[in-house]
């Protein structure tokens, strides 16, 4: 299309909108409700232009406005005490939260979902999911340090899993590896409930000096608004083509890809370029372009600032010259950022972007007044109060109702399942569990991720937490773990969410780090279903109150609704990420034992708790009863013990107990370095009044196993006794023992363990 047709005549301007109040507009097709459309008219005092309608419709979508979830977020604030706020430098509401980890270092981390795009196009969906969360972290002024990827798929043996999983994994790896960010952990979970709706969550952590934190706000009248990075194409526009076809007739562009394609090389260059810009102090405010593209970036920057903004949209560099203004506003083209720059620093800004061959364009400037004005070839096509777009979208108090099926589920306890009667049976269950999709070795997945790049990785898969160094001089660094058992959350979303929090917290402490802060990625079904909304509320309450109990704040997160196939929602899946700090990460505790003669202790008490557990699920296809009891005081104490023991050199290995219970923890700790152990559980069974089966497979929380050097044994047990930590000496590391020897009961050789553990994924996905 030539300039003329693209400009004036075919564009819906503000003055035209004022003169033609009755034009039919496709608000319904764009996903707005009639009262929402009416509100827009009210705010503007006229009908919106097509461009304004486009902006409001994307910004007021569930994804961008949190309209169903927002009313529950008061729970975060209400449960954050002043003490918890002390280390919080930036809280919920910014692109990502920031915590103070000491020595002048600030760390920012956040998780995000890219579930639906990854189902449509697994590789690109997952890749752009990683790209998006990394830009969020960059927009805080941080250097990204590492990524993680909590993933959930349908049945391992369903043919569609063969399409989705390899693509997702290759996409996470393809993007992250090319950015040079180590992948330091994540999850791979299989459950039929995710069959038509896999979950692809991505987490990124970054660091900066405290004084270098940047925020997304446009202030200072006359400051320039600069768009930099990739050109804008028609990516991910989806709904807007509706708008285009309603407003324009023939001659328009035809196809707009709903799928976004990532260019990790462009993002890598963008990262380095941003870091140079920050170092040169030429950036006043900065925002990444993610969902809702320029609509989001311009309205949020302006809304967070103290003035207005004027943008000449026709200056946006395009990959596809046929894009219409409203499409440009909504495009989700990847690898773009927007900065606010003082005019006197613009020259230096552009020198830096030039050096990195990054295209940068001044689109407009910060104005006084309080309107966001966007023009197209001189004509005003948007003139709105930015807050009304970015922050004053609709909020819903959706109905909540505890689902009736819960009573049925609770009544169907795992007590009726056949428990193995003898040693032979126990061994068979152990090996099948070790080979089950959720507990098998995940290296088919994790070997596709670079865990070493940047040279700061102190711990990664298959250990309990990912640990990276932040300060090269001192070794100060962070540990992160993400966890969630969706079956627990299905049985009881409040307890399930707290168990997810507790597990991530425990994993971080197991690695030797002091837990400090929390992020979450809340994956749920449709908010229009009162049962789902109830699950959501319970989960948020669980995390918020749990955090208060543990004394660590939620710093940010993400909500993903509409994860369902037809009417069937996924299990509620509130993935929780906990971040901890260590003075020197080289002292981290690995999850496997190496040194013969070290003594193995089991910390914590075991109850008969198999509801929602892996044994019932994997071996009997059963889901029912109650999840394990949550005891956050016990978690706090255990974490304290683990951190202090690690700091004082009292433990050389530690592994937390979660899915599959003690049996799986012992097997994993043995497999880690191929060093065996002799184990005796009689005393534990007697103390906790349980049988051997329960001792091995129960998933009671607040437990861990540790390996203690003999020279430190007395100090270690004295500490446990003094603090009231339940502990039991259950074995010894022994390289003469081939695998695990449960004395007087059964033996499992290393080869048996290894064969069971490592065969499952390669059997489905190949070498």
């Amino acid at each position, binding site marked *: 299309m030539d300039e003329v047709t693209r400009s004036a005549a075919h564009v819906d301007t503000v003055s035209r909108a004022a003169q033609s109040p009755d034009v039919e507009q496709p608000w319904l097709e764009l996903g707005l409700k009639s009262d929402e459309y009416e509100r827009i008219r009210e705010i503007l005092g006229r009908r919106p232009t097509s461009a304004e309608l486009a902006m409001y419709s994307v910004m007021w979508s569930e994804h961008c406005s949190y309209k169903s979830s927002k009313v529950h977020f008061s729970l975060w604030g209400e449960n954050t005490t002043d003490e918890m706020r002390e280390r919080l430098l930036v809280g919920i509401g910014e692109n990502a939260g920031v915590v103070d980890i000491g020595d002048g270092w600030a760390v920012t981390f956040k998780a995000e979902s890219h579930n639906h795009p990854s189902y449509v196009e697994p590789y690109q969906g997952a890749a752009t999911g990683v790209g998006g969360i990394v830009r969020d972290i960059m927009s805080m002024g941080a250097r990204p340090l590492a990524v993680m990827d909590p993933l959930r798929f349908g049945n391992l043996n369903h043919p569609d899993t063969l399409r989705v999983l390899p693509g997702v994994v*290759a996409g996470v*790896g*393809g993007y992250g*590896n*090319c*950015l*040079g960010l180590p992948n330091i952990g994540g999850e791979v979970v299989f459950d039929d409930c995710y069959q038509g709706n896999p979950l692809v969550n991505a987490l990124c952590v970054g660091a900066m000096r405290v004084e270098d934190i940047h925020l997304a706000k446009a202030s200072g009248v006359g400051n320039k608004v600069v768009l930099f990075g990739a050109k804008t194409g028609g990516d991910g526009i989806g709904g807007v083509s509706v708008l285009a076809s309603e407003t324009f007739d023939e001659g328009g562009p035809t196809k707009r890809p709903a799928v976004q394609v990532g*260019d*990790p*090389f*462009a993002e*890598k*260059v963008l990262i*380095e370029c941003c870091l140079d810009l920050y170092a040169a102090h030429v950036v006043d405010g900065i925002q990444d372009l993610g969902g809702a593209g320029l609509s989001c970036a311009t309205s949020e920057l302006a809304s967070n600032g103290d003035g207005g903004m004027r943008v000449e949209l026709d200056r946006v560099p395009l990959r596809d010259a046929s894009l219409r203004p409203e499409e440009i506003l909504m495009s989700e083209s990847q690898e773009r950022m927007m900065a606010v720059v003082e005019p006197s620093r613009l020259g230096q800004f552009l020198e830096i972007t030039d050096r*990195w*061959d990054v295209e940068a364009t001044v689109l407009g400037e910060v104005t006084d007044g309080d309107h966001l004005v966007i023009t197209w070839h001189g004509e005003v096509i948007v003139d709105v109060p930015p807050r009304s777009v970015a922050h004053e979208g609709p909020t819903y108090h959706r109905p909540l109702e505890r689902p009736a099926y819960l009573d049925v589920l609770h009544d169907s306890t795992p007590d009726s399942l056949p428990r193995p009667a003898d040693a032979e049976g126990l061994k068979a269950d152990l090996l099948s569990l070790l080979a089950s999709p959720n507990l098998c070795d995940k290296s088919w997945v*994790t*070997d*596709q*991720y*670079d*865990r*070493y*790049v*940047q*040279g*700061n*990785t*102190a711990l990664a898969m298959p250990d309990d937490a990912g640990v990276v*160094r932040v300060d*090269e001089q001192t*070794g100060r660094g962070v540990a992160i773990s993400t966890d969630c058992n969706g079956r627990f959350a299905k049985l009881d979303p409040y307890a399930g969410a707290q168990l997810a929090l507790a597990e991530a917290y425990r994993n971080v402490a197991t690695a030797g780090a002091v837990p400090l802060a929390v992020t979450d990625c809340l994956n749920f079904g449709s908010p229009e279903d009162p049962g789902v909304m109830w699950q959501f509320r319970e989960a948020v309450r669980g995390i918020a109150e749990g955090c208060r109990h543990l004394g660590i704040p939620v710093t940010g997160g993400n909500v993903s609704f509409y994860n369902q196939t037809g009417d069937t929602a996924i299990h509620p899946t509130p993935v929780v990420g906990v971040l901890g700090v260590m003075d020197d*990460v*080289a*002292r*981290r505790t690995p999850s496997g034992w190496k040194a013969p003669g070290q003594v193995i202790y089991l910390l914590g008490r075991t109850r008969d708790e198999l509801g929602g557990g892996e044994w019932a699920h994997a071996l009997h296809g059963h889901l029912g009863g109650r999840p394990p009891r949550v005891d956050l005081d016990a978690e706090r104490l255990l974490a304290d013990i683990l951190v202090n023991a690690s700091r004082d050199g009292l433990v050389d290995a530690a592994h937390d107990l979660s899915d599959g219970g003690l049996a799986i923890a012992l097997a994993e700790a043995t497999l880690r370095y191929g060093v065996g152990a002799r184990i005796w559980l009689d005393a534990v069974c007697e103390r906790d009044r349980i049988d051997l089966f329960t001792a091995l497979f129960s998933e009671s929380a607040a437990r861990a196993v540790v390996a203690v050097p003999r020279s430190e044994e007395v100090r270690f047990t004295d500490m446990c006794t003094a603090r009231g930590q339940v502990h039991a000496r259950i074995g010894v590391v022994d390289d003469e023992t081939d695998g695990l020897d449960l004395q007087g009961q059964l033996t499992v050789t290393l080869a048996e363990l290894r064969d069971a553990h490592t065969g499952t994924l390669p059997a489905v996905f*190949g*070498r």
Partner: protein
Amino acid sequence: MKIGVVTFPGSLDDRDAVRAVGAVGAEAVPLWHGDADLRAVDAVVLPGGFSYGDYLRCGAIARFSPVMEALVPAARGGLPVLGICNGFQVLCESHLLPGALIRNDHRKFSCLDQRLVVENAATAWTSQFEQGQEITIVLKNGEGGFVADDRTLDELEGEGRVVFRYAGDNPNGSYRAIAGITNERGNVVGLMPHPEHCVEPGYGPSLDGLPFFTSVLQAMAQA
């Protein structure tokens, strides 16, 4: 002693290489892809990563950068050059080393703690190893399959120019399990695994990367 570390757009392990150079007490000098200037360094490391995105073929575009225009003749003249992973690919594309690197035979990126046998302990970058020594260092790439025609392979074997061979299972389908090679003079070495990730206790699977850098210090001292 000054060792240059080149940064291409898309280089990832340049910082690690700088750290490794520092770990043996040498001075690391950053070299920029856009400058045809080696800044009087005594040796050069071409680090790992995805130069220019590696979208066409790994190393294919980096080969035409100004810094390579300066480096190729210097390397032919005897300057010690170590190409790690993407750096190895750049050396092959630049014809400083024979052969080429293609997609792994299993078609996936893979990150492993890999065992290698040192088959030539006489190059500028391997003199501190024992001939036949087994080491473990990080291997991580998607296109690490070393290929060349039979004549070239026979020549490499015959002249002792295979410097590293994979021990155990061949991780990527490299012909004759070749992990790294050298030129006739022994000053240019390329390998797929990453010694620079194995130089610090607490990070990486071993310290087996250090001898690469102590070797070149010695070579430079003798030069």
